[in-house]
């Protein structure tokens, strides 16, 4: 059951082969056995999970089972959960218990899911290695000396180590896809606006988007059906009819036009990544897909653009943490200004402070046009690159990350080195496009490589179709990490 797909688990629950209480106990025991080494969870509340599981069993016995009734799911600790800590990986919110549930949390509860716990993450989702978490880094189940990626590193590590069948994450510049790649799991960043941001702690509001991480594309499709949908409480939530994301999973790939952006296959790609992604593209060709070279000429500017826009939005969003209404407040201060300054100096970690200061700078008088407006103009050029490419192809394929998982501490002294590693995941959110990452092999060190697929707006069903067909022909996604054997 630890290694089963969501539909297998659902079938086992429906036939009474296992109860939700038994299933939940199984995953809680797995978390208990592995979490001291992997640090994938910040909060686990066994009694609450088991109570939810028993309630799910009762609902099922009464004949009212929904899509995920009795299936355990973990949430990234950025989603507000009523009655359970929501820390966002920060000292600022280390003791914060939200008075309300995020929309995504409500949706999972309504679908019958059992909440297993809250997953570790980079502080306020700012990071690509999970090392900026106030609670210490989560570790990679393929090699515990390595990072799981970030910012949804705890979610990816937990799914990879089979501590949960599925988890939620958020993606602003790659925070679902990059950890999914580094941990050898599947992760989807939906089109901007598809999943409500209500109750999701804000980082960069024009980019932030919630999405699922799981063991397979088929599982992602089911999870997206639960997560997606209009919510009036998020002003950027898109009003569109609900979709069946599983409808096209088995559609043959014959005639599918796959664009390969030449900028994604240049220097700086690790040989193991190049080889595995190349093999994956050949598998798509074997199934009848037609590959063609496309160009996204402004790819090299995506990282600088992102590090203007995201910090600018963050500096505004994080101004709410002032030590007055919730969160940390400094113990000693002279006056109101001193209280703000000390509270924020103590409550935020180094990376978060760095980004707030950068954001403050690029928005300040005299620099606004040179940085912020210039970045917004380049953002449009990046979006136009994609529009031109999608006139010629149905999906874009390439590496999710230029490298496989790296050692803890390897990049933490040089923020810019860390930022540049996200070059392939940053463009899609700037344009608002959907993207997913699926495992496509291993490098010489035995570490998983991620294949990224990007599509036009609201083409999630197509992306999931391609990913599912690929996973029907390969078994990379079914491999169990060697530092977390079953």
């Amino acid at each position: 059951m630890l290694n089963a797909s969501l539909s297998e688990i659902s079938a086992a629950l429906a036939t009474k082969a296992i109860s939700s209480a038994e299933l939940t106990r199984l995953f809680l025991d797995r978390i208990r056995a592995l979490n001291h080494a992997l640090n994938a969870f910040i909060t686990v509340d066994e009694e609450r999970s088991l109570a939810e599981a028993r309630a799910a069993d009762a609902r099922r016995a009464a004949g009212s089972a929904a899509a995920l009734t009795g299936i355990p799911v973990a949430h990234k600790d950025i989603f507000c959960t009523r009655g359970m800590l929501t820390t966002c990986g920060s000292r600022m919110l280390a003791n914060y218990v939200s008075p309300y549930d995020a929309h995504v949390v409500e949706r999972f509860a309504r679908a019958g899911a059992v909440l297993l716990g809250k997953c570790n993450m980079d502080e306020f989702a700012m990071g690509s290695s999970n090392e900026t978490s106030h609670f210490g880094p989560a570790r990679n189940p393929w090699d515990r000396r390595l990072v799981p990626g970030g910012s949804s590193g705890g979610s990816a590590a937990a799914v990879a180590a089979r501590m949960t069948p599925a988890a939620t994450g958020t993606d602003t510049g790659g925070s679902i896809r990059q950890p999914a790649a580094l941990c050898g799991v599947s992760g989807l960043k939906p089109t901007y606006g598809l999943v409500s941001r209500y109750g999701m702690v804000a980082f960069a509001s024009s980019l932030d988007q919630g999405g699922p991480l799981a063991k397979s594309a088929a599982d992602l499709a089911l999870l997206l059906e639960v997560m997606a949908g209009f919510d009036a409480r998020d002003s950027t939530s898109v009003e569109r009819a609900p979709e069946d994301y599983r409808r096209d999973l088995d559609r043959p790939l014959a005639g599918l036009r796959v664009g390969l952006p030449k900028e994604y296959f240049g220097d700086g790609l690790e040989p193991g990544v190049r080889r595995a992604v190349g093999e994956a593209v050949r598998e798509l060709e074997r199934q009848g897909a037609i590959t063609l070279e496309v160009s996204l000429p402004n790819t090299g500017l995506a990282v600088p653009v992102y590090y203007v826009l995201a910090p600018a939005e963050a500096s505004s969003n994080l101004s709410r943490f002032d030590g007055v209404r919730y969160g940390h407040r400094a113990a000693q201060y002279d006056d109101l200004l001193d209280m703000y300054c000390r509270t924020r100096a103590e409550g935020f970690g180094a990376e978060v402070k760095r980004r707030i200061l950068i954001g403050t700078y690029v928005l300040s008088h005299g620099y606004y046009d040179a940085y912020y407006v210039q970045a917004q103009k380049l953002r449009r050029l990046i979006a136009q690159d994609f529009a031109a490419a999608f006139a010629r192809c149905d999906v874009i394929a390439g590496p999710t990350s230029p490298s496989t998982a790296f050692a803890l501490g390897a990049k933490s002294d040089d923020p810019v080195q860390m930022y540049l590693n996200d070059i392939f995941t940053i463009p899609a959110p700037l344009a608002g496009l959907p993207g997913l990452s699926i495992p496509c092999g291993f490098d010489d060190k035995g570490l998983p490589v991620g294949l990224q697929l990007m599509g036009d707006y609201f083409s999630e069903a197509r992306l999931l179709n391609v990913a599912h067909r690929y996973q029907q022909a390969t078994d990379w996604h079914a491999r169990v990490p060697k530092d977390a054997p079953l």
Partner: protein
Amino acid sequence: MSLSHDQVQRLALLARIAVGPGETDAVLAQLNRVLELIEQMQKVDTRGVEPMAHALDLRQRVREDSVTERDQHALFQSVAPAVERGLYLVPKVIE
């Protein structure tokens, strides 16, 4: 473009984040690294390009001007650092 110590202290004040004298050098060095990175944007001529604030063309939704929330101030204030008689407490602002 690189920052000075004074500019870092000015930014820190604007951002309401205390940066101690012992930290300024390290913060300055890292901010300058990031500014070097974003400086790359300047090499592109973007005259005539419309700035893009948002991925989707969104319009503000309007709704009836009616009460949709119930009063939950006690619940919301239960997570506040300091509250008295329904009010958030802060250091004295007006003499």
